[in-house]
């Protein structure tokens, strides 16, 4: 594929366009600076830019040409111990430094008793957990002085004592805290397949006004000895056909929303990643057409 260099782009760093973007990862730093591929925006993991040195310099360069969104993976909104104040401070400094158009985190937890469990762990869907998450979203938004988006997780287990469906839990977090939602369509598909949920019903239950961003990624399928399968959200391949279909359904419900391709393991050459973004962009432009016709009609 050929790269179309981005020229005459005048980004508004404070807003992420309703276009397809890609997750910027270290192996692509130099290629991105050299080739300036045509993607609508970039998203980076906040934790990778909390220090100084080379990563920040690459990002400073790219920030001139691409709007940037900041995606946290370590705040642990669901920790019963409370937020790690030092980490929230690091996030606040990264936000001040990078001036991202969007800031997002996850409906999950990763830290207990000062131990980081290095994964986005599932919460029990209970009133107690809902209260904890809302308190921490409030605290984060207050410290950052702006709205964040909270992403739906991919999960491989459910707790017996959960009483609230995940989609309702997310809607309540958005309703109570005023945060937005990051709708990870791949995560909905993975969780729905793993737990026997109806993915379309999940989408229908989310409040459209709260959706600020969509994530797409690849996942893997593990077949266990018992013959049962478990889908794992490993961000290590192209977006699955069924996830593209679900994405189209999401666009019909939510309208054109900034959409990100995430690829974190087995990271491919940049043109493969940009190609995935082009597939999302094609669907987004159909969606924009539809919205225009709807307005005209």
């Amino acid at each position: 594929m050929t790269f179309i260099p981005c020229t005459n782009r005048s980004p508004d760093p404070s807003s992420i366009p309703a276009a397809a973007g890609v997750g910027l990862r270290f192996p692509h730093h130099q290629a991105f600076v050299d080739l300036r591929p045509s993607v609508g925006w970039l998203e980076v993991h906040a934790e990778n830019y909390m220090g100084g040195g080379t990563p920040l310099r690459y990002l400073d360069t790219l920030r001139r040409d691409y709007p940037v969104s900041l995606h946290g993976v370590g705040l642990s909104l669901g920790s019963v111990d409370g937020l790690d104040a030092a980490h929230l401070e690091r996030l606040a400094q990264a936000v001040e430094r990078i001036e991202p158009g969007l800031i997002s985190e996850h409906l999950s937890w990763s830290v207990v008793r000062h131990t980081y469990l290095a994964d986005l762990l599932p919460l029990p869907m209970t009133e107690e957990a809902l209260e904890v998450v809302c308190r921490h979203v409030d605290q984060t938004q207050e410290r950052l002085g702006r709205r964040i988006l909270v992403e739906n997780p991919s999960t491989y287990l459910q707790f017996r004592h959960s009483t609230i469906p995940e989609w309702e839990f997310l809607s309540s977090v958005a309703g109570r805290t005023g945060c937005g939602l990051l709708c990870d369509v791949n995560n909905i598909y993975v969780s729905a397949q793993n737990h026997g949920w109806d993915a379309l019903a999940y989408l229908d239950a989310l409040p459209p006004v709260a959706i600020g961003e969509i994530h797409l990624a690849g996942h893997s399928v593990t077949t266990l000895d018992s013959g049962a399968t478990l889908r794992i959200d490993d961000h290590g391949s192209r977006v699955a056909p069924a996830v593209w279909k679900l994405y189209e359904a999401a666009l019909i419900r939510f309208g054109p929303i900034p959409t990100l391709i995430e690829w974190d393991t087995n990271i491919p050459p940049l043109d493969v990643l940009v190609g995935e973004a082009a597939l999302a962009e094609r669907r987004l432009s159909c969606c924009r057409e539809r919205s225009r016709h709807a307005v005209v009609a």
Partner: protein
Amino acid sequence: MPSLRELQDAIRRSIVDRDDLDAAAWILDGGIGPGRRLSVYRNTFASTLIRAMRLSCPAVDRLVGAEFFDASVREYVAVRPPRSSYLDEFGGDFADFLEQFPPAQSVPYLPDVARLEWAVNCSIHAPDAPVLSAAELGIVDPADHERIRFQPHPSVSLVCSRFPVDEIWRSVLAGDDAALTAVDLSSGPIWLIVQRHESGIRVDRLEATTWRFLDDLFAGCTLGNALSKYPGIDAAKILADLFVQGRCARFSLANTAVPGP
């Protein structure tokens, strides 16, 4: 029904201590046993941290081989899991762990290679900071020079070893087997300074006394005390080098000429 506190403690035991007993009782089976479901998270914990450690310790990884490295990190994270989600700060005591790790005893220089890689890693991730110039010291009355305390640039650190770990580190990363074979393990102790420059990370050797003098200065010892501790040292040359190389971020004046730590 467990409280969120009880549940998160139980998941911690499942992931770090490999004890599923409590957590499994609270998880729906749904055709896949709770133990198998929990193992997905346990595997991510291990693989994420192994990947992080492999990125920060590439020379240790290549010296011992991937299989041994993975096993070492699995043991390491079981006894010393990361304290926070900021993984740039994770791995500082891996060298100490290797020192006590029986299977690693046959490679006596391994912990010091890990120490050097940790210093390199800290240097890579250190915050950006302005560099102190000689001109800024011009405002200090010469009578106060002995009260000066230097704060090193955040990317600077000092490392020493009984082994030539800088040669080992370089030849391993360059994949230069001939150079690695030629390393003389009995060539005597080395004194290193690690720093991030515009061009990348640099690891330079220092003369032993210069290293000790800087080690004292960077630990907060006043210039006066450091000078009296190392009589005859060529301080003018060392300080000039300090400024030219941008090794200091700031200075301050001690209230009185008290002994350094």
